[in-house]
């Protein structure tokens, strides 16, 4: 089963729009490294005559040996030129690299007159090549196009109703021709049976050439099996109330999986078109064109799926809907007893063959029957899902003689005839010659093939039904791992918090320490000062400064950006503390307490 990928691009219909008056111009330039490059350039247009506002497609192809391609587009009056595609191929044969490049341009005619495209020149490694000039004509907007349009298959407003282009298909009535692009959706059956094919048809109508590929967002298909149909899409010209369009049509097969009302929500198509805009200047009669991106939506499509009738339903009906035929065959007509043969039952026809249940085998008492395997081969032809479902069963004949396999039946519902049908395969005969039948394959009933009874009672089960909470225990390891990881994380956080706390309390601790200066002599006071100051830095900076000399401490603080004045004050206080070691007895450093506290406060502020 293949579903369309949402957003997958539809094939650009640009290649199908060679008609309307348009002009395409292409330019290619190649540069090469190979001196002996064989350089050729060709240019072609899809039409030579267009009307204002219509476009011409120009294709330029360049063949050369390897080289750097640098396109060069000549100036062409009277047209807006847009590059709409490029194709680059490089091949290496016997070490020779050759390049083929094709550029495609869409040219929108702005002004009536005769114009010449080219010659388009290409240069490569000192060589030059050019195309023949191409003359094109742009007619006024309402001017009828000549009946001898060259290379065009596009419908034209000037063509007579009967002179439709090749592939023309009439549009259904009731469409709106005032839009340059619109999209419709429908199903071929709005009241199908369960598992009957429905074809979803999406049509994109374009009155102008799109730029780039169209984005297709298929509808939601909940409640359906989806099969992509072949060909994936087709295009054809049409007319809506006299206005020419090109139609890009996409078809998808759907099979409803349940009866009742189903809805296919709108599909969406994104497309960018060149739109002519009339100039606001009265003196400019031609206007200009601008790209316009549009998102087009279909209407919702409702499908009422019918149940399969219960009346007349065969007992062996397995859900197949469609129109089928059945064949059955053995891979051998003669086989020795005990040797396997393959019975192949093939059901083929129109419908979703994947829904076909295994064909029930009749009772084959004179065969050992192995499990049946099945394969499906789904085909899509002319927008119909058809296919083959093949069932293979290995049979081992157990008795010699002519054996007959008959009664192979298959039932399905035919939605066209609205009735169940049962088909039966012709009888198959198999000549079984004498052979060695293995003990396992002997035609004995199953009762005679059984291994003997057990003499042990086995282990009596505990009869223990684990309570639900026991299952919850399985969460314990995960909780344990989470707990350990959380704990580690908490510890890291706490350490970080501790460091911050120490920083915030540094000054308070230092002040508390310095209070001791009031009660100790100068010798001990020096030690107190050193302890308080170094403790402060230890807490505040997270560094141990006890072992540092005054010069080293000063340098450290300088690195931390402390002002020289503060450093000088601190140094003076620490020198005083050092000198206090040699102070006479009875002297104290109490007078230094306030000074030190202020210095440390200022340092903390500065840090």
């Amino acid at each position, binding site marked *: 089963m293949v579903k369309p990928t949402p957003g997958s691009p539809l094939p650009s219909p640009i290649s199908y729009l060679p008609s309307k008056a348009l002009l395409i111009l292409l330019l290619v330039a190649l540069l090469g490294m190979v001196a002996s490059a064989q350089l050729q350039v060709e240019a072609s247009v899809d039409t030579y005559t267009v009307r204002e506002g219509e476009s011409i497609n120009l294709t330029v192809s360049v063949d050369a040996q390897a080289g750097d391609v640098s396109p060069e587009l000549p100036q062409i009056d009277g047209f807006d030129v847009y590059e709409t595609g490029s194709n680059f191929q490089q091949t290496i044969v016997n070490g020779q690299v050759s390049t083929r490049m094709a550029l495609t341009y869409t040219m929108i005619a702005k002004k009536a007159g005769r114009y010449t495209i080219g010659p388009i020149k290409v240069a490569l490694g000192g060589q030059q090549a050019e195309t023949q000039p191409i003359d094109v004509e742009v007619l006024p907007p309402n001017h009828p196009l000549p009946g001898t349009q060259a290379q065009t298959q596009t419908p034209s407003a000037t063509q007579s109703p009967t002179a439709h282009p090749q592939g023309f298909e009439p549009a259904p009535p009731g469409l709106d021709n005032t839009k340059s692009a619109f999209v419709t959706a429908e199903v071929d059956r709005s009241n199908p049976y369960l598992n009957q094919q429905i074809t979803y048809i999406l049509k994109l109508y374009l009155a102008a050439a799109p730029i780039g590929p169209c984005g297709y967002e298929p509808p939601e298909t909940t409640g359906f099996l989806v099969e992509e149909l072949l060909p994936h899409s087709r295009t054809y010209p049409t007319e809506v109330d006299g206005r020419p369009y090109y139609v890009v049509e996409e078809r998808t097969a759907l099979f409803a999986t349940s009866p009742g009302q189903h809805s296919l929500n709108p599909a969406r198509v994104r497309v960018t078109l060149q739109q002519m805009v009339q100039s606001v200047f009265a003196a400019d009669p031609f206007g200009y064109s601008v790209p316009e991106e549009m998102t087009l939506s279909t209407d919702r499509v409702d499908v009422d799926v019918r149940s399969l009738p219960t009346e007349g339903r065969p007992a062996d009906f397995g859900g197949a809907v469609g129109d089928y035929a059945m064949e059955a065959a053995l891979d051998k007509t003669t086989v020795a007893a005990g040797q396997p043969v393959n019975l192949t039952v093939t059901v083929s026809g129109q419908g979703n063959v994947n829904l076909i249940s295994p064909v029930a085998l009749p009772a084959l008492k004179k065969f050992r029957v192995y499990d049946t395997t099945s394969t499906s081969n789904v085909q899509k032809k002319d927008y119909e899902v058809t296919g083959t479902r093949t069932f293979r069963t290995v049979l081992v004949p157990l008795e010699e003689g002519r054996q007959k396999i008959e009664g192979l039946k298959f039932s399905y519902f035919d939605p066209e005839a609205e009735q169940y049908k049962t088909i039966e395969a012709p009888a198959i005969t198999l000549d079984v010659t004498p052979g060695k039948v293995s003990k396992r394959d002997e035609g004995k*009933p199953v009762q005679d093939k059984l291994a003997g009874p057990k003499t042990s009672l086995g282990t009596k*089960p505990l009869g223990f039904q684990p309570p639900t909470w026991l299952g919850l225990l399985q969460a314990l*390891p995960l909780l344990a791992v989470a707990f350990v990881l959380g704990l580690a994380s908490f510890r890291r956080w706490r350490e970080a918090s501790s460091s911050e706390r120490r920083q915030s309390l540094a000054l308070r601790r230092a002040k508390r320490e310095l209070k001791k200066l009031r009660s100790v002599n100068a010798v001990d006071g020096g030690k107190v000062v050193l302890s308080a100051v170094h403790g402060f830095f230890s807490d505040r900076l997270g560094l141990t400064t006890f072992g540092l000399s005054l010069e080293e401490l000063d340098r450290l603080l300088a690195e931390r950006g402390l002002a020289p004045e503060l450093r000088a004050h601190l140094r003076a206080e620490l020198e005083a503390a050092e000198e206090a070691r040699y102070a006479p007895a009875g002297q104290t450093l109490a007078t230094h307490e306030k000074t030190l506290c202020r210095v440390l406060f200022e340092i903390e502020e500065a840090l």
Partner: protein
Amino acid sequence: MRKLLCLLLLALLLPARAEAAAALLAKANADYLQGRYAAAAEGYRGLVAQGWRTGEVYYNLGNAYAKLGDQGRARVAYENALQLTPRDGDLRRNAGELAASLADKSPAPSNLELAASYFTRTELVISASFFYWVGAGLLLWQLKRKTATRTALLGVCALGVLVFGGLWVVRERSQLGEPAVVIPSEVSLYDGPGRDFQAGLKLHEGSLVYVLGSRGDWREVAALGRVQGWLRAEELEPVDGGSPGDR
């Protein structure tokens, strides 16, 4: 003191009950070997009723039913036995022979389902849990200090969890509902819970189905791997030999 006496009494009675069960098994086996299959089946059923819901007893019961030509009940007994002793060679062979002789063929299991069928649910859960717990312990240890040996062991544990856990998931998913077996020789699957609904596919004796739901006396079942329908409860015998904790 009273508790002690009770325990003592129990200890004395247990061997006696086991001896009685062994005697019953010996008698049933003798009946079986002498072709008295109904008596043998009665004996094996008696053992089951006494709580001997073991793979061996169910296997013997399945054999007795098979000999009697009661394919449905034989299938029930074999399925019960397979849930308890899935690697028993005789059991797998006999169950295979019986399944091959049935009119309805179950779809062939996938390789993974086949692998999972060699283990009981308990074995798979315990194995997966073992590797899971050991792996979690190793992971905790690994968080403390990482070593190559522990990393390798952790990998082994992860693989064990993956293999046994995966097989457990496969085993559970392969069982669409509570297993049961069709007992009558032929029954019709209805597309609704009642005789008023349309009868469709026919199922035959011994066909294994999975009960998805119930309404009154009717059971909604999945049969032959993919067909759904309704059967009367009396047409089915559940496969519930071992208690869930013992499977």
